[in-house]
């Protein structure tokens, strides 16, 4: 189930990071920001597969597992969109151009872009869940003829929490892609949709017998989304979810990220639904 990780740095000890430079930091929303880090020179191919994550280290503070959210084929830059929720990510938010950050990775099982070829693709993102899906979107667009219908559904809490707003407009402008955006709570001046992202699913058109769904967002949002997706006739071996757990090492030896018998860091974070659906129903597993 695990694909080979693409390593760009050779580390003496797998817990020692490589040092990268912060090229820039952009504020996305009130608590979400994007870090652009120096990548490799492009000579060793893509620096990660969509869906994988890196362990980012802030000097003296700690590490956090963050999904890579840029274009894997533009490997001169390594991009991560990060929510400032804890000590480490808040410290990351204070980094400025020229600062250094430690990077270990990439780790994890990526989105099933190969399996999705020749099929309709439905991507459902909730909140910051759009960040780990964006690399998949880039790859799909880069190889657009290889896929059937492409549908992107994105829901966020409020209009102010929407990520990549300008880019989404570009995606929406494509004639070969259906993009729908909604917010749970409207704000003044919002003229778009209001309602949960699952409400968008009945409005999509795709062939449930020949489709792949990729879901990313809070676990509860994914559970609700699975219900709607299955109502459309998709089987659980056509649906993929991205899980999140506490991670310390990133490669299956610290024990923290276990989810049933799986290590989210290496058996995941992307899982095929039929392998994990029974676990999603068990409290505190």
């Amino acid at each position, binding site marked *: 189930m695990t694909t080979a990780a693409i390593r760009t740095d050779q580390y003496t000890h797998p817990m020692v990071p490589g040092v990268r430079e912060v090229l820039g930091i952009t504020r996305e929303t009130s608590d979400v920001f994007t870090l652009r880090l120096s990548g490799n020179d492009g000579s060793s191919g893509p620096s990660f597969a969509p869906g994988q994550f890196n362990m980012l280290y802030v000097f003296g503070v700690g590490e956090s597992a963050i999904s890579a959210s840029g274009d894997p084929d533009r490997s001169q830059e390594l991009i991560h969109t990060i929510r400032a929720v804890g000590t480490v990510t808040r410290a990351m938010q204070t980094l400025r151009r020229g600062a250094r950050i430690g990077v270990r990775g990439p780790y994890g099982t990526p989105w099933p872009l190969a399996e999705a070829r020749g099929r309709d693709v439905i991507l459902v993102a*909730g909140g910051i869940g759009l960040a780990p899906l964006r690399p998949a979107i880039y790859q799909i667009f880069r190889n657009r003829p290889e896929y059937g219908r492409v549908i992107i559904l994105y829901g966020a809490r409020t209009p102010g929490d929407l990520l990549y707003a300008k880019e989404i407009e570009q995606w929406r402008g494509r004639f070969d892609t259906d993009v729908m955006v909604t917010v749970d709570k409207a704000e003044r001046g919002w*003229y778009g949709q*209001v309602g949960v992202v699952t409400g968008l699913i009945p409005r999509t058109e795709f062939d449930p017998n020949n489709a792949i769904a990729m879901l990313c967002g809070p676990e509860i949002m994914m559970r609700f989304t699975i219900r709607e997706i299955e109502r459309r006739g998709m089987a659980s071996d056509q649906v993929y979810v991205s899980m999140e757990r506490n991670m310390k090492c990133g490669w299956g030896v610290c024990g923290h990220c276990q989810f049933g018998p799986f290590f989210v860091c290496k058996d995941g974070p992307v899982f095929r639904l039929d392998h994990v659906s029974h676990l999603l129903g068990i409290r505190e597993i």
Partner: protein
Amino acid sequence: MESLEPILKEHQFLKGLAEDQIRFIVGCARNIRYDPNQFLFREGEEASTFHLIRGGKIALENFIPGKGVVQVETIVEGDVLGWSWLYPPHRRSNDARALDPVRAIAFDGACLRKKCEEDHDLGYAIMKRLLYQILQRLERVRMQRLDVYKVG
């Protein structure tokens, strides 16, 4: 006047209804359009119609004194709108405002209720469909309440 039967048959909500059932209720229906910003109905008004939305977007909203207008959901093509027509006192719970040009079929609520009472098979078919719509909407509202993207 052209018959509305083909238009009724087309709408997602009535799919699967028999020809004679469609014919039975077509008399309660009229074709209706709304301009952007026009209200389909207001909170507190008598709920006399049941809408099947054929096109356009509608904001379901409430006005909160001091806060202003709060949109709780967006209704779109394929959806149904309103169920307060089913039970007394038949009063609307929200404002419904067209966001762009809206095309809809409006059923007279009293007429449709009477038809359902007269023909229980029809009544069952309508209620079954309506219940499913309400189930989905309830699920969405519950999910909205969970505030799933909130941190901490």
